[in-house]
């Protein structure tokens, strides 16, 4: 096992796939010569050259459209959208074109591409550079949606995403870029659509994603140590496909479900999981389903305000105790 930062894991994953398959190409703004604004793609230009690693103009529609056209004709592009908030400027290409073209053409077209993007809050960047937008992608049939929480998952899920014949939106969390963790040596490929049970408990199942995973784990520790409540923690990892088997199995076992979502509340991924559990596990539930989310407000910039709205370990603990006490 090598120790890598989440940031370096991005470059390592892309390099692993580009080395393996010459049809993998990479494009985005400031990703080549500059190595990315988060320095997550440093070294790729030097290693793979300017025909495979290409800087683009500030033209998200053009670059995502180009990725689509290339994917339809034999390449496997990885496209970067610098901040997930900017998905909005090319949302038509993603939601209406990339997602639907295979279906509309009754399978004539295959769309093997990955859109990777820096998602999430915690950097005091304000309302237009901090959103958690996995649910936007989840609303659109035809998109796969992944959000890794660890360096190992960055590599394994990125590799799986690049090899997947369908379009994958790959949400990297900005506040995790500096975190470190072990990554298997050699080629490492994981599987899309598998959640991970990170901790086993009996009283409640906490389901979290991306930067909420370490917080959920910390909350589970505190619940156990200070309150005698033992929690299972599940890292969803992949929203589409969704590993309902793992999630529902754990919820059924503990009888309780808490989702921890960084997104503003309405129509977050937790709502979907809650609706599935409330339909399929009705008779197994011992108590109400709880969603801990950022309140339904845009994100403030000041550090104390941002910290106030994003779910914290304290808030997760407090809300779980309130709900189940």
């Amino acid at each position: 096992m090598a120790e890598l930062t989440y940031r370096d894991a991005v470059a390592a994953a892309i390099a692993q796939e580009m080395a393996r398959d010459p049809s993998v190409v990479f494009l985005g703004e400031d990703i080549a010569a500059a190595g990315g604004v988060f320095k997550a793609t440093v070294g790729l230009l030097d290693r793979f050259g300017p025909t495979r690693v290409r800087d683009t103009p500030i033209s998200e529609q053009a670059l995502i459209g180009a990725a689509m056209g290339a994917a339809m004709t034999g390449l496997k592009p990885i496209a970067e959208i610098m901040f997930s908030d900017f998905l909005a400027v090319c949302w038509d290409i993603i939601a209406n074109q990339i997602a639907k073209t295979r279906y509309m053409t009754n399978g004539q077209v295959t769309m093997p591409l990955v859109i990777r993007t820096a998602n999430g809050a915690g950097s005091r960047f304000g309302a237009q550079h901090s959103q958690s937008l996995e649910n936007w992608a989840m609303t659109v049939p035809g998109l796969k949606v992944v959000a890794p929480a660890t360096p190992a998952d960055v590599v394994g899920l990125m590799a799986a995403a690049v090899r997947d014949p369908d379009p994958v939106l790959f949400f990297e969390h900005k506040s995790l870029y500096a975190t470190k963790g072990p990554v298997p040596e050699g080629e490492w490929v994981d599987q899309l659509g598998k959640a991970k049970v990170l901790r086993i408990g009996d009283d409640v199942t906490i389901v979290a994603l991306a930067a909420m995973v370490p917080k959920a784990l910390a909350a589970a520790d505190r619940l156990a140590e200070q309150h005698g409540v033992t929690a299972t923690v599940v890292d969803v990892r992949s929203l589409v496909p969704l590993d309902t088997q793992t999630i529902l199995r754990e919820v059924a076992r503990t009888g309780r479900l808490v989702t921890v979502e960084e997104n503003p509340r309405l129509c977050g991924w937790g709502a979907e999981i809650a609706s599935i559990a409330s339909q399929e596990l009705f008779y197994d539930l011992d108590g109400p389903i709880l969603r801990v989310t950022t309140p339904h407000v845009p994100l403030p910039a000041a550090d104390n305000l941002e910290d106030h709205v994003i779910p914290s370990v304290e808030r997760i603990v407090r809300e779980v105790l309130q709900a189940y006490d």
Partner: protein
Amino acid sequence: MNTKHSRMASPPDVPIDPATRLALYRKMMEVRALEKRAYDLFLQNLIKGTSHLALGQEAIAAAFGVAMREDDYTFCTYRGHAHTLVRGASMTGVLGELMGRECGLMAGKGGSMHLTSVPHGAMGSYAIVGAHLPIAAGAAWSAQYRGTEQAAVCFFGDGTTNIGAFHEALNFAAVWKLPVVFVCENNLYMEYTPIGAVTAVEHPAADRASAYGLEPLIVDGNDVEAMFKVAQTTLARARAGQGPSLIEAKTYRHSGHSRADPAKYRPAEEVAAWMRRDPIKLYREKLLQQGVEEAAISKIEASVAAEVDQATEAAKASSVPEESIAMTEVWANGDWSWRN
């Protein structure tokens, strides 16, 4: 009309050979016959939804259909029956799709606005204005990367030149020198609104060319030979690695924007003037003047008429798609499932 070609690969000044001329005529006739039939099938309520015909604009698609290499890529719009057909897609497949039948190009899943025939290089019809320009650039990028000398051709209307994706795609393609030909079919209207009322320049495409370092290319879109020549030169330029072109082809649609539109907003004289410039009528006269036997022309016309009749019958005879296919081909494994 401004037809500067200074930055283009040298235009082939060889005359168009007789076989090619008849091929051009035939392609135009095929489009005409198909579109007229589509119109009739509508009136018979055999086509549901909407449909956007290319009646009057046949020369542009036909010229490119003849000029393109088999492995080139076409990207077009909801008004894309013509562009799909000229690449070799079957009439039955096109009419079947319009009618929502199993024999349709996409078995009814896409419909009139999304005709696609990948085996013929018809890479899709896109119904949200502007989206396919960057996608076409991407296919051209792929050709460039793979070193295949394929070109991508992207058709769109005058109204499309005012949307952001147009601008992004043109700049992107120019900077990356991509082998893509952008063809603006300027039929003077964006839906019901005259293009002049919503555009800051007279020639919506050509007057923007310099913003991307490109030459303005204005062509008479109702002159199929002029279109054929500009198709050849721009395709050659693409294959030679000289980058994209932007063509503005002046033309006119004979019917309304779509099924729902009687096109009452167009001055009668304007319509009449353009009807006199019907590209098929013009070309038929020209062929006769050039000494082509009327019999050769009539033979094409009869053959096309028979083909469209046959296709109509085949499409009518085809059953509606199984409901189960509504739940297939979301993913490459054929499935639609989002969970385990």
